[in-house]
């Protein structure tokens, strides 16, 4: 029982980190970045290549993955999303899907569709025993990383000037630019942070579930997006709670009900939550004015 809870929280922490990226981008650019899941996959491959082929130390491989994804995120934003800043949200959505196909197929050409066995990059963390329960190093590392990321991100958006600029832009772009805030720069920064987080999530995900394929990021991407909506999209603590709850529900459903139906159960819970609370657990209620 407690074992399941721990593996659930561990999986949920990965979802939470991915969901943070989704939520930040949604909050500021009001777009569903469907390519986010594929950035996770690219991050996984970047860490895999440097860590496995070039035998770089773990911290350097992870750093490299973060840099690659950050640059990739900013480039994608500049090339594909920026020209569509004032277009309808559906047009941006389809563009994001196009970018997602693009990344998947580039990965397919470079690394082929054969799954790669990802080495556990968190294996240096020792086991921890609490009473009779054993917590694996991977689970511990994932949860600790998630908490660090969460705290750092909350401090960043609440305390720093750039974080303040971010919140302003997400509130009202026009007023923000009148106040002398560089709106485009702030949006790029958000994409950079979101993509950097995706790289970390990629390494954590592949360390826990060690098969790496060009489609690795797709399903966790969708689930993390669900988690973000679950917690109330646009809210940072919401993404965190949503992610962890989703992970716990998924593992429990797998263990006690049915492995095949676990995804169906996760989505059913989401639907029930949204019907009871239409803007997610921590979402802001916006009343429409005529």
């Amino acid at each position, binding site marked *: 029982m407690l074992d399941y809870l721990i593996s659930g929280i561990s999986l949920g922490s990965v979802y939470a980190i991915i969901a943070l990226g989704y939520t930040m981008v949604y909050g500021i650019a009001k777009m569903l970045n469907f390519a986010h899941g594929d950035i996770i996959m690219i991050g996984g491959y970047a860490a895999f290549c440097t860590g496995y082929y070039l035998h770089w130390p773990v911290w350097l491989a992870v750093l490299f993955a973060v840099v690659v994804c950050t640059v990739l995120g900013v480039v994608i934003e500049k090339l594909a999303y920026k020209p569509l800043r004032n277009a309808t949200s559906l047009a941006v959505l389809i563009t994001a899907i*196009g970018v997602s196909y693009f990344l998947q197929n580039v990965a397919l*050409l470079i690394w082929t569709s054969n799954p790669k066995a990802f080495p556990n990059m968190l294996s240096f963390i020792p086991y921890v025993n609490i009473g009779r329960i054993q917590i694996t190093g991977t689970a511990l590392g994932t949860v600790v990383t998630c908490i660090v990321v969460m705290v750092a991100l909350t401090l960043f958006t609440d305390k720093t000037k750039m974080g303040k600029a971010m919140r302003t832009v997400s509130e009202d772009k026009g007023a923000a630019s009148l106040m002398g805030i560089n709106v485009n720069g702030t949006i790029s920064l958000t994409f950079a942070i979101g993509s950097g987080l995706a790289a970390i999530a990629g390494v954590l995900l592949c360390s826990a579930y060690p098969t790496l394929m060009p489609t690795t990021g797709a399903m966790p991407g969708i689930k993390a997006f669900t988690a973000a909506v679950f917690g109330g999209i646009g809210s940072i603590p919401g993404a965190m709670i949503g992610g962890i709850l989703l992970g716990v529900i998924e593992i429990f459903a797998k263990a006690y009900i049915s492995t*095949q139906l676990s995804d169906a159960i996760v989505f059913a819970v989401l639907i029930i939550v949204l019907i009871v609370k239409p803007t997610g657990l921590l979402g802001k209620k916006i009343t429409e004015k005529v």
Partner: protein
Amino acid sequence: MKKLSKDTLMSFVNYGIVILFYIVFQILASTGNLSSTMKGQLIPIVSYVIMALSLNLVVGISGELSLGHAGFMSVGAFTGAVVSTALTDGIPNTVVRLLISIVIAAVMAGIAGILIGIPVLRLRGDYLAIVTLAFGEIIKNVLNCLYVGVDRRGIHFSMNSTGALDLQEGGKVVINGPMGASIMKISSFTCGIVLLLLVLFVIQNLIKSRHGRAIMAIRDNRIAAEACGLNVTKYKLIAFVISAAMAGAAGCLYALNFATVAPKKFDFNTSILVLVFVVLGGIGNMTGSIIAAALLTVLPELLRQFQDYRMLIYAIVLVLVMIATNNEKIRGLIKSIGKKNKQESSGKEAA
């Protein structure tokens, strides 16, 4: 003679395009100028055109983003598979059997549409989109665990395995969990085109009807429409259920064209594919949906010579087309070029 309005003219253009498409491909097929891969693509093209039209009803006319349309397609596909197998002995005529299968598939998908629509349509915007996505995934997951068999006593269902179906001798397993359904191919291109014309007829007349105007009024301004006494949920549900039923019919037509169909075929990516047809063709524009769905279904086949690069090219084309059609500056540029040409030609005429 009464002059036709622009809308009426456009709807006749749509029927014309479909009929022309049918005639051209029938001639090509009968003279043997059609490659076998293209022949195999004809029914999928028709199915995807119907899918695009039905999704356009939800996205374009009703103004709600649905990301789970493939779910309805799979409900139709698997209903069609079961019905057509169950009726094999009873109705030997394949055309009649196909029609009955399509009707029952549409009804089942419509019922699924009501069940999903009632909770979903209370939500708005992106939340509605994510819930339709979730429902699509749930339908796929449940179908993955579904086992259905047919014997003389009737149809048997199970969620565990084929053994639990307890079939009599001579019974047949129709749906085998993740392996999908085994089907007799009875779809025909002609039936598909007739179905497509029917779908087009229903949509175009719905748009022009009182109900259609109500649905579009709600799309344009929900609060104002509500203030005028329109029942928002009712009209949204009408559009959603009709769309679901059409998707079910398309799914049935699609499935009965293959020997086997797995639930995996109708996943999130298929929903997105259809959404791409709708958006590229122009939201709310039925002609655009028909052309975009037909072209984009064939495009990966045409790009086959590029092999590994074809999906990459598809992705790049998709992004570039979206930027070209939606960026203000590029749009302005195209418009100004168009204007210049017009001015020049009108200038010549005047001279």
